[in-house]
């Protein structure tokens, strides 16, 4: 099985013409459905729906409240290595960047973990660049083992692994995985990834499924908005998420909405995504996937994050550094991208409470320590 097969079934469709041809009545029809289908999703992502965001927002807010209540999961990324063998044109970790590279020792991981734990955060997202030789699965297992002492919930955002390797990560304590396809347009994908193992579009596309098959509890996917046509990428990401939901109902599938941010390179997005566009992506994906968790990172500024919160967002990063060593274990490396919301965990938590939301720090823990 592969989501690629599902994508192939749309090969005969002129998606751009279809999406731009959608009318208000199509959007109204989509809004009236209990379970919108792919054609409805195209309507919700269309320019016509772009003129009806308030209507979309009302239903999206209602669905979010119904399924998630007023609880918002907080987490922070922990960058443990920025060595990378890829040449992704949009990324600050690009192998051709001359910046000094850094990888945390396990003792440094422990120091960073201790510092993050004092903020109250209980869910950590472990990140690396794509350099298997430097940060092999064995290293990731060791990192997870250290972090398990401090955090009940561990997620990974690393290079694409095999199914067996994902199973190893689960055994080492990983609850979930985030992996973005970046852009679902294969031609644009090839242009954005001119060198390195990440060039393999199909291997990356199937990574979330491999993780599900290995038994990962939570799998987050998405596009990096700005690389390709955002309407198409939002469509495919949502379709991919529902496909995973249908194939692997035991896994919780999440979506993220990362948007291109300034970084150490000079590349600028070819398909800029305005705040209004990002809002439409969020609303369309929430309406199409009422139960999916949706993450909004600190790539977005504080005011936008706060305004988008009730419309479908259920996970926020907080107290973020995008550098290896950024939590104080030593000299910080080069940031992967600039953070737009640099508020501390306590400030984000206070903001949530002021707005009537509950910051959730813990929502799962491995129970394998209990006698069977």
């Amino acid at each position, binding site marked *: 099985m592969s989501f690629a097969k599902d994508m192939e079934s749309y090969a005969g469709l002129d998606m751009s013409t279809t999406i731009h041809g959608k009318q208000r009545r199509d959007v109204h029809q989509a809004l009236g459905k209990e379970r919108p289908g792919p054609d409805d999703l195209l309507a919700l992502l269309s320019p016509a729906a772009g003129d009806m965001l308030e209507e979309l927002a009302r239903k999206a807010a209602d669905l979010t*409240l*119904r*399924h*998630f*209540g*007023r*609880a918002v999961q907080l987490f922070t990324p922990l960058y443990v290595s920025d060595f990378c063998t890829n040449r992704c044109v949009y990324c600050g970790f690009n192998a051709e960047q001359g910046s000094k590279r850094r990888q945390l020792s396990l003792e440094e991981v422990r120091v960073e973990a201790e510092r993050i734990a004092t903020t*109250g955060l*209980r869910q950590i997202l472990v990140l690396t660049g794509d350099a298997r030789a430097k940060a092999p699965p064995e290293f990731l297992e060791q990192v997870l083992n250290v972090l398990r002492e401090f955090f*009940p919930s561990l997620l990974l955002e690393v290079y694409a692994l095999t199914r067996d390797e994902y199973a190893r990560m689960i055994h080492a304590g990983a609850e979930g995985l985030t992996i973005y396809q970046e852009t679902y347009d294969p031609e644009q994908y090839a242009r954005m990834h001119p060198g390195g193992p990440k060039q393999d579009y199909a291997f990356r596309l199937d990574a979330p499924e491999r993780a599900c098959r290995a038994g990962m*509890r939570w799998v987050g996917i998405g596009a990096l908005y700005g690389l390709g046509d955002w309407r198409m990428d939002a469509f495919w990401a949502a379709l991919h998420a529902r496909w995973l*939901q*249908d194939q692997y*109902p*035991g*896994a*919780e*599938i999440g979506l993220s909405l990362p948007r291109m941010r300034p970084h150490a390179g000079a590349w600028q997005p070819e398909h800029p995504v305005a705040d209004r566009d990002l809002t439409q992506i969020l609303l369309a994906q929430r309406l199409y996937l009422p*139960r999916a968790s949706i993450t909004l990172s600190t790539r977005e500024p504080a005011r936008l994050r706060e305004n988008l919160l009730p419309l479908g967002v259920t996970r926020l990063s907080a107290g973020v550094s995008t550098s290896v060593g950024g939590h104080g274990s030593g000299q910080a490396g080069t940031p992967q991208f600039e953070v737009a919301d640099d508020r501390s965990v306590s400030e984000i938590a206070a903001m949530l*409470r002021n707005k*009537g*939301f*509950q910051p*959730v*720090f*813990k*929502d*799962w*823990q491995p*129970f*394998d320590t*209990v*006698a*069977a």
Partner: protein
Amino acid sequence: MQDMNDIFEIGGERLNSRLFTGTGKYGDDAMIPDVCAASGSEVITVALRRVDFQAATGNVTDHIPKTMRLLPNTSGARTADEAVRIARLARAMGCGNWIKIEVIADNNHLLPDGYATINATETLAAEGFVVLPYVNADLYVARDLVSAGAAAVMPLGAPIGTNRGLQTKEMIRILIEEIDLPIIVDAGLGRPSHACEAMEMGADAVLVNTAIATAADPVTMGRAFGEAVLAGRRGFLAGPGAQRLRADASSPLTGFLEG
């Protein structure tokens, strides 16, 4: 407060309220004590996965009044084995020996796995837990749960969080008739009238979380559910008259005898 001679007992414990409440989805856990007080509820369920025993403060259990009977649940469990492990952890952590079994392996609809629930119930009941399993309204599953040692059966009224009311009404009616254990309608009750209807039918209790926690005013909604449960119970005890399709004069056929 229920009538003095209307006894409601689970696991050997007498309860004054037939409304169970929950702790999820609130904007602020600090309102939980007020909801408990307003609703009169004495039993409150909490997802063990959200309880952080290592956190010094900020735990949901900090907000649960000491007078409440804690009903930890196994939310997040995808298998019977996970549910059993969570239950044991709950007891080891001092949450008592009541456990609500939730085994859900389908995140799309959040429907409970009956087979896994029966298996977990059997294991935990044998270990002395007071097991309250959350299940589909299914007679065969309910009978197996009786055999497995459950202390009650908790059929869903509608899928979790939908607020759609008693969509499984006829099946619940059968459980009430056939199962000699307390029937606690759980999940899907969205309005006080839904809870009232379940109690009028003869359900022993209801569990309501989303409808209260996501209301604009959870405390007032909690009170409304408490009153509705009481009204429904009284209506059930009063023995409602039979329903008829047509208006019915008091003695249409034998009235002539009094003339």
